[in-house]
Each structure stands twice: as C-alpha cells, then as structure tokens.
C-alpha cells in the first residue's frame, strides 16, 4: 500500500467513522425519546414538512454541530487561552488517529500493524485527559469540578476496557486489532466465547461515552455542563465532533474485538456488505447502551467508582481467567 492510497483510505475511514458516530448518536436520541413518550428527531419526516425539513432527520446531530460551528466563540478572559483552545483540538487529533486504526469491515488503513490495540488504547486514554485539561483551565468552578470528576471516573472505567481488550488479545494471541478480528472469523466471535470480558468492555464504554448512569462529569443539574461549561461556538462544535468520533471509535473497538468486525463466521460477504453488517452490529450495541442510558438515574461519583470496582472490574477479571482457561485447557474451542 503506497502512501497516497494510505492517506485516502485514512480520510475515508475517518469520515465514515464520523458519519457512523452521527448515526449512533441519532439512535441514542431516538430510542431514549421513544421510551420517554417523546418523538425525537424524525426518521421519516411527514410529507407536508418535507419541503422545509428534508426526508429524514437522521443527521440531526450533524446539523447541531453545523449550527455550533456557525456561532461565535467566546473564550473567558480568565481562562488560560492556549490550553483552553488546544484541549479539544488535541482530542480531535487523537480521535482522528484512532479512527484510522479501527478497521471497518475489510477497510483498514493502519490496523494491521503489530501493537495497534495498545496504540489505540493509549489514544483513547488521551481523550479524557483533554476534558480534564479543558475543564481545569476554563476558570469556571463548574469546569474544574467536572474535570475532577472526570479524573476520578476515568480510573474506574478505563480498567475494565483495558483488561477486557487485552483478554481478547490473549485469546487471539496477537496485539493487532486486525488479527484479533480475523481470529474470530476462524472460530467464533469472542462475544460468545467470552461474554464476561465483552460485558466489562461495554460497561466501560458506557462510562467513557458519559451515558447514564455514568454521565457524572457533565451532570447538568449539579455542575452545569462540567468541562464544557465555558466552551461555546466553534470550540463546543469541536467537542461535539469529538463526541461523534469517540462514540464511533469505542463502538468500533467493541465490534472488532468481540463481534468479528462485521464478518459472519462461515459466510463470505463482499466488502460493502461487511460495512453494512458492521453498522448493524454497531446499532445493536448502541441500542443496548441507550436502553441502559434511558432506564437509569445518575450515580453519585463514589457510588460509580464503587460499582465499577465491584462489578465491571470483577467481570473483567473473570473474563481474563476465562480466556486463560479457554486457551490452555480447551485450546480446541478458541482456535
């Protein structure tokens, strides 16, 4: 693969990742709206309104971002300007890099290199740090509190993600995301083989995406908007773009590590069909996440930490043991 091809594919992957993130976020909004007896953004706009609204509002999160990007950006004079501006930019950089590592079906720009899983986890770890940074330098007490809470929560939710991800690496015998995905097509998806690790990673992802009950760093009635309190206009739009990318990357990570990345074992699909199954699997995971999001109130920070340690981290540990058992006692199943 030459350089130009690589750049083109990386750009395509990033844009696809962004569009998928938009669709996932639309789904979260729609499902929670329907469960709360609200309508939510239209999937199919009624005929009389189509002239002004278009046929579908599935890209509503995107329109919100466009609106924010058109607005004036206000930077508080007391904030540390450079750090304040660079925090969301740095997060965007990390997320663009990580979305090139996540393979979508057969399309993979960088994911096949060795240790790509480690690189991805590092890049994803950087995102909460930018939130902490942005909140802390914004000079708003709410931002500082949000950053502090994010710092606490991060330690809790990263643990199951990291342990669960490395469990799949142990099962596949490789640190490359592409190889882990390929290994599942040869045996069974790891969601079936090791549901404990899958559950742990999914719970970690819910925390990372700030879905309920873990939206503690941006709890609006307690600390206004947390780290995003002082952000406005284009910078807030940037944060929203980051949110879309983060959703898509996290869900993509889960699909590749536990659901064979859109491939169906035993069935040969062509490239575009794998992208569709990939998206469908993503939609299923997001549906589960948005159910949890809708049916729960918010944890208090100490309760969340407690719960993560007692439940999610425990699940991850069980998953790790399970992987060990599978690999060494029943190597036939794990392939």
């Amino acid at each position, binding site marked *: 693969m030459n350089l130009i091809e690589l750049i083109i594919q990386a750009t395509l992957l990033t844009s696809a990742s962004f569009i998928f993130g938009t669709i996932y976020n639309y789904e979260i909004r729609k499902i*929670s709206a329907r*469960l*709360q*007896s*609200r309508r939510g953004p239209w999937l199919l706009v009624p005929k009389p309104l189509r002239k002004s609204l278009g046929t579908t509002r599935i890209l509503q999160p995107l329109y919100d971002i466009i609106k924010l990007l058109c607005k004036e950006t206000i930077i508080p004079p*007391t*904030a540390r300007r450079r750090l304040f501006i660079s925090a969301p930019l740095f997060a965007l950089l990390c997320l663009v890099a990580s979305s090139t590592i996540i393979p979508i079906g057969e399309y993979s720009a960088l994911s096949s290199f060795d240790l790509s899983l480690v690189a991805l986890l590092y890049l994803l770890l950087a995102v909460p740090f930018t939130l902490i940074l942005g909140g*802390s330098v914004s*000079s*708003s*007490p709410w931002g*500082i*509190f949000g950053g502090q809470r994010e710092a606490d929560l991060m330690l809790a939710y990263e643990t199951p993600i990291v342990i669960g991800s490395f469990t799949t690496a142990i099962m596949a015998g490789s640190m490359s995301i592409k190889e882990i995905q390929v290994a599942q097509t040869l045996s069974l998806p790891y969601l079936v083989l090791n549901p404990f690790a899958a559950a742990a990673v999914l719970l970690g992802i819910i925390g990372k995406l700030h879905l*309920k*009950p873990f*939206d*503690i760093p941006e*709890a*609006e*009635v*307690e*600390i*206004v908007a947390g780290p995003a309190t002082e952000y406005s206009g284009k910078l807030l739009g940037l944060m929203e773009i980051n949110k879309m990318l983060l959703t898509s990357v996290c869900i993509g990570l889960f699909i590749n590590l536990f659901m064979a990345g859109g491939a169906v074992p035993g069935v040969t699909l062509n490239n575009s069909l794998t992208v569709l199954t990939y998206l469908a699997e993503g939609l299923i995971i997001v549906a589960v996440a948005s159910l949890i999001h*809708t*049916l*729960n*109130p*918010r*944890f*208090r*920070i*100490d*309760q969340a930490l407690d719960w993560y340690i007692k439940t999610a981290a425990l699940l991850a540990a069980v998953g790790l043991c399970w992987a060990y058992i599978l690999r060494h006692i029943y190597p036939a199943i794990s392939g």
Partner: protein
Amino acid sequence: MVMELARYLTVEAGGRLMHVSVIDRGFDGYEVVYHYALDHLEKNLHLNIKVSLPEHNPEIESVAKLSPEASWSEREMMELTPVKFINHPDPRHLWLPYEWPNPVEGVDYEFLKDRLDAPPTQKSSNQPSLMPIGPYHPLLIEGAYFRVKLKDEEITDVDVKLGWNHRGIMKLFESRSYSRGVYLAERICGICNVTHTTAYLNAVETLSGIEVPDRAKYIRTLIAELERIHSHLLWLGVAGDLIGFKTLFMLSWKVREKVLDIFEATTGSRRTPAMNVIGGVRKDLAGETIGKIERRLLDLRGEIEGLVKLGYDHPLMRRRLQDIGKLSLSNAISGGAVGPTARASGWKLDIRWSSPYLAYADGYTTWDLITEDGGDVWARTMVRLKEMLVSIDIAKQCLQALKKVGGPIKIEAVDPKNFPYNEALGKTEAPRGELMYYIVSDGTNIPYSVRIRTPSFRNNSLLPKMLKGYALADAPIIIGSIDPCYSCTDRIIVIKDSENPKGRGA
C-alpha cells in the same frame, strides 16, 4: 412579658410559632402579632399574641433565639416595616441585597469578601472553596442563591439568599377589593394556586362570617386534592431530573397530563381554575362529569401505584435517595418544618387533620395521615407518592358526596358596605405544607393588611441543616426534596423603573 409567654408556649406547651406579622396602624403605631399554633396538640387551637409598639422607634426583643423558626419571619418584617427586633441572631437583609441600601448595623460582612474560585487560585486544598448554586443554575428554574462552601465534594456551610423575584403581592392586596383579591392570591404560585385561594377565602369568610354551603365545600376539596396530585407528580418529575432520571421526569409528567385533563373537564381551565369565589364556587359539576372523573381517577390510581412500585423496585433510584438530606424529628420541630418535609421526619403535622377546613373534617371524608420515619430524601419522596393515593381517596369520596349532596354552590357575599372590623387567620395544607393567611379588615371593601406565610418560606430556612455534610452531587436533590417554590417564597416589593415611572416590576 412577650419573652416569658413565648418561652412558655414553645418550651412548655410545645406550640409552633407560625409567623410573626407586623401590622402598620398608622398614628397608633405598630402591632406585632405572634401567631402560635397548638393545633398539632389539640385540634383547631391557635393563639395570637399582640404587642402594640409606638409609632417612633418601635423596638421589641426578638424571639428567634427561643424558637429558631421565627428568625426568617422577623427578618422579613424588619425589611417591610420599621420595627426592630433587637438581639436577633441573624439580622441581615432577607429580601434586599445584603449591603443595599445600607448594611445592617452590627453585622459582620466579612463573609461577602470570600471570592468565588474564578480564576482558579493557588489555594491549598485544605481551604474550602465557594460554589454558587444560583441565582441562575440548571438546578432550579427559579431564582434562589445558595452560597455553598465545599471541602473537596463535601458541603461544609450553606447560606441561602432570597429575594431575586420579589413581587410586592402583600402590598398589592391592600389596594384590591376582597373579591379581586382571590385572583391575586391565585397568581402567587402557578403550581398551587387553588390552595392559595382556599387559604385566602378561609380567612375572608371567617372575617365576614360566611358559611360555605356543603356542595361548594366538596367541590373545593375535590379541586384542592386534584391540585395536590398534580403538584406532587410535577415534583416527582423534577426530582427525577435532579438525580439525572429524565425518563421518570417524562413518565410522571405524562401521568400529570391526566390530572390536567380532569381539571379541564371540571373547571374549563388546565392550570389556573379560578374555581373559588367568595361564598362558594364558580361552577357546578354535572352528573356525567362526575362519572367521567371517577373513571379517570381509577386510571390515575393505577398509574400512581406503578410509580410507587418503580420507586421501591428501582435499585439505583433508592440508592441515590436514601440516607441523604437527613432532617431529624427534633430539628424538624425546632426549625418549624411543615408539610411532607415534616411528615417525612415522623411528625404528624397536617393542617387538614389538625385544623380541618372544607370537607376534610370528620363527617365529611375519612382519610389516613401519611408519615415516614426516615427523615431523608427517600422518606420525603415516599410521603409524597403515598399522599397522592390518599388524595385520590379523598377526591373519590368528594365525588360520591357530590352525587347525594344538593343545594346551592354559592351564597351571596356580604355587602362590602357592611364588612365588619375584624381579623382572621386562614390556613390550608398546601402541597408543600402549611399555608397561612392573616387578614385584617377595617370595615371597607378592601383588606387593611394581608400577611402570608408560605410553606416554602419555612422549609427553605431548614435547607442549610439538611445540606451540611453531604456531597455536592446530592445538593440538587436535597434542595429539590423540600419542593421549593420561590414564587411563593419571594412575594413582596414593587420595583419602580425610573425611566418609566408607570411601569411596574415583575
């Protein structure tokens, strides 16, 4: 003399000081009225102690040290009248900004110099940081300001500042006739307007010696109980939002729509029914309407039972609400808690039960008084949820009675020319607690003086006690758990616009 009486009434007799009113008697000086209620000990027992003060330099010893619940009442009266309550433990302004127009003498204003933590300072982490909750904050759509001092996430000190939406309603009453006053009372609060008119009319009808016909009593009770259900459902939704449970918010407001539909069917208006008029009610209920309401109430009962079940069964909800914002029984009594806040601390205090009005008395309806022992937010939630079921019971009994009891729905009011010189106290159990109207008449068709003590006024003063020692994350739901209503709490003062002298402040 007053102090001795006050000591006897609070300490020995176990009375509650409801409010301290000051009536401006013009050349005759000022009249301080201490409204003591002993109705929680013996039904309907109230005591008003009146002290006359000279026109110039009126001063009286404060009773706030004896009964802390008097503190805010006395501060309010010091703001509205020239009467000075000397030796008051906390004589700062209640409605006005602390230092405007003049700082109160003998008060240490050092605390105002504590700056908010913006820009971030290099303070060591041992020092408490100051957090502003309000006056504009997503926690409350209404204006209230809590200066919260925090050590890490723990609340160490709270100061409540009121007066962000001061409307001058008590003064406006003094320029309106009694019948127009009903509509003014209705506009004090959008959520509990029926109970305001009921309390106002309780006072006015006692003043003029009117006995409301039975049918009107039942209709008034029905509307008041429907209002309680709607108010508690509204609160439940807001409480859900405060713990981040948007689904509960939507769910309970969906149920609330049904109550509003009943309102519409009975009164023609969804939220401000304007049903109560002097001497009775405006509109009768037809036979088929009663049947319709009964069917809807049955439906509503099922839905509310579902909400109670949800409260008990949802693991996270219970975890968020239990063991926070505790108010012990002794604190509730000494601070003068009212309504569900008092009942959740195990205090059997319900005005419907202790000073029965309308159709709450024996012989009209029978119902249970709901209390809980926890004293925490969970107990307050449960009291409100179970109270809704009781309210449905009362409403049903009223509907049954309306099928049998005939007669007029309204009697003619007293000719304004013959209005007596009198004074009267009207009380109701509002959804948030005891609501008190004290009206003094002077023989004309407009009241001489009106004093209102709203339930939120009392419960708000207890908030610092409930908040101390809990996490900032719990502050919203603790503040929300008393169901604070700032349109009730802030009532007075007319703001004059210097450029537009005719314009009246909100």
